């Protein structure tokens, strides 16, 4: 609303367009200016202050764009020497031997599996819950309570990730152990629930990590979904009600179709966050040298947690380069996911209002 108002009608400040010299005070009223004030013949006033301020503001805008470019560029420059020295296939190997700079062998395939598995598992858990919360807060909860309830969900985002990590590893993991064991023994014939490279009852696996990640991305998805669901045109809701729809039918026929793509966009944002989450996973996942068994009871490292774990051996440029190469892959994938999320989000709601 405010956007359209602002973009259309914006007054021109006096310094920018040029002030017409107004000398009407001495002239009789009847002979008031014959020429309209803003004729092109008027001299354009340019103020130094304006010029400085404009270039400062524009410069900082350019700076932000440069930062992103610099991130990609620097990571690439630092990664290339390590990639050239790499003795394993970067994309297809599961090795991570970076301690000796003369004998580097590293690949991302295992990191990619743990990263993707934990993020997707988190998304599967978080999406329905977040959608439910957003519908509850926008359509069901009484007006007075909707605000404080929303604040409570936002508080989930205020807890630092290292604390989620501690909670997940020390408190949650023992509690959900029976669930993990039950899934493994009874549904083990489904590949993702099969035996992992650590016992299912160890707790420090993708299963625990995914649940903690789901809690962490919940406020992000809920926030976006609340915003789009609340924008459902009232006329549609009232129309559905007038046709005798129940509350659920209103949600199903108006609110959900209207907000669906925004909800998906928000989920992608959550996915981006989950892919890059570091410390919680570093704390929860135990590191094993055995390759993954492609089950959610695997342990190992994600891109981000591998980098965090490796911080102790950051002592020469080639070793660091190997980690930076992993960071570059993470950067590119979060960039892609986030860009996709924004694209979905911005194309939602348009043309429907």
């Amino acid at each position: 609303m405010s956007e359209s108002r602002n973009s259309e009608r914006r007054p021109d400040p006096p310094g920018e367009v040029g002030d017409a010299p107004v000398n009407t005070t001495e002239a009789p009223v009847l002979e008031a200016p014959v020429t309209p004030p803003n004729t092109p013949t008027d001299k354009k006033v340019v103020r130094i202050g304006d010029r400085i301020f404009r270039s400062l503001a524009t410069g900082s805008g350019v700076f932000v764009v440069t930062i992103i470019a610099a991130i990609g560029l620097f990571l690439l420059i630092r990664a290339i020497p390590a990639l050239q020295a790499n003795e394993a296939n970067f994309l297809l190997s599961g090795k991570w031997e970076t301690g000796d700079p003369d004998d580097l062998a590293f690949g991302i395939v295992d990191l990619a599996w743990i990263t993707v598995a934990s993020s997707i598992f988190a998304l599967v858990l978080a999406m329905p819950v977040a959608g439910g919360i957003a519908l509850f807060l926008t359509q069901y909860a009484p007006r007075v309570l909707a605000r404080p309830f929303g604040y409570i969900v936002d508080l989930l985002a205020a807890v630092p990730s290292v604390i989620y990590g501690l909670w997940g590893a020390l408190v949650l993991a023992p509690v959900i152990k029976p669930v993990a064991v039950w899934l493994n023994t009874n549904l083990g014939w489904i590949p993702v629930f099969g035996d992992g490279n650590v016992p299912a009852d160890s707790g420090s696996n993708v299963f625990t990590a995914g649940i903690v990640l789901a809690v962490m991305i919940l406020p992000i998805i809920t926030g976006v979904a609340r915003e789009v669901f609340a924008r459902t045109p009232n006329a549609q809701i009232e129309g559905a009600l007038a046709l005798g729809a129940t509350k659920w039918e209103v949600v199903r026929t108006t609110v959900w179709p209207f907000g669906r793509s925004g909800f998906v966009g928000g989920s992608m944002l959550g996915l981006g966050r989950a892919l890059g989450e570091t410390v919680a996973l570093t704390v929860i996942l135990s590191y094993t040298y055995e390759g993954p068994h492609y089950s959610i009871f695997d342990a190992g490292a994600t891109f981000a947690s591998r980098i965090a774990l490796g911080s102790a051996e950051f002592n020469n440029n080639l070793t660091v380069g190997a980690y930076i190469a992993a960071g570059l892959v993470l950067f590119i994938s979060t960039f892609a996911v986030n860009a996709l999320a924004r694209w979905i989000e911005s194309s939602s709601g348009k043309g429907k209002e």
Partner: protein
Amino acid sequence: MRTDTADIERPAKTPAFQQLSPGRKAKNHIATTLFALAFVVAVIPLLWVLFTLVRRGLSPMLNADWWTHSFYGLLPNDFGGGIYHALVGTLEQTFVCALISVPLGVSVGIFLIEYGRNSRLARTTTFMVDILSGLPSIVAGLFIYALWITTFGLDRSGFAVSLSLVLLMLPVVVRVTETMLMIVPDELREASYALGVPKWKTIVKVVLPTSLSGILTGIILGLARVMGETAPLLILVGYSRAINFNLFDGPMASLPLTVYTARKTSTEAGEYRMWGAALTLVLLIMLINLIATLLSKLFAVKTK
């Protein structure tokens, strides 16, 4: 005649929507319950985390030394010591981060709303700010490492941490400035221009003061978020159990780093310190959140 009137007054058939079919009613109830349940499901982990923190972290905190001492010289089995060194580090690093990111972020916001509206550069900038807000914190840390330590050849330090936090804080500041400037009514700007005030003075003296409290609230919330970041700290600064006031030299503790490091001391005393530091960090963040909420309540932006 008589029967005709009766026919007119009598409805042709019973109204269609007098009652819902049991199936629709049941579906409606199930949906309502499920949505409310989703909210409860979200509250459980929050309460659980907070409860764990208070139960395990409260006792170290009640010790008077907690706020005035460091962990310096403590053996793995020694109880006692305090969080002062980490508190100093966290506050200094966040303060310097704010010092850099606030002016930069506010001027990006001013550019987006007051100058570059709908220009190509503004659209690119908005997109880049979006990307920046999704930047994983470990990547921000790696970038600063590649720039500050590998390229410039400088040492790991608290200042490098501040720089990486700037990357994470910047999008928050830009976003909130943008939103707050957007709701400043155009009438205020017009009135100022009509008095012959130049544009930059209008921004500094009229537009910014009007939106100040909102921007301030957003900045404080951003600070609270940045304070809990751990990932960049792991690669950009060493942990120190002693008090270090110097951002530019030597290892420096901070609250998240203390929590992370104390976890490796697998003794009872180590756990005691870990939960103490964790509760301190969350309390600090909650306190800052509270301040922000109060600020926004006290000085709500006056729109028409």
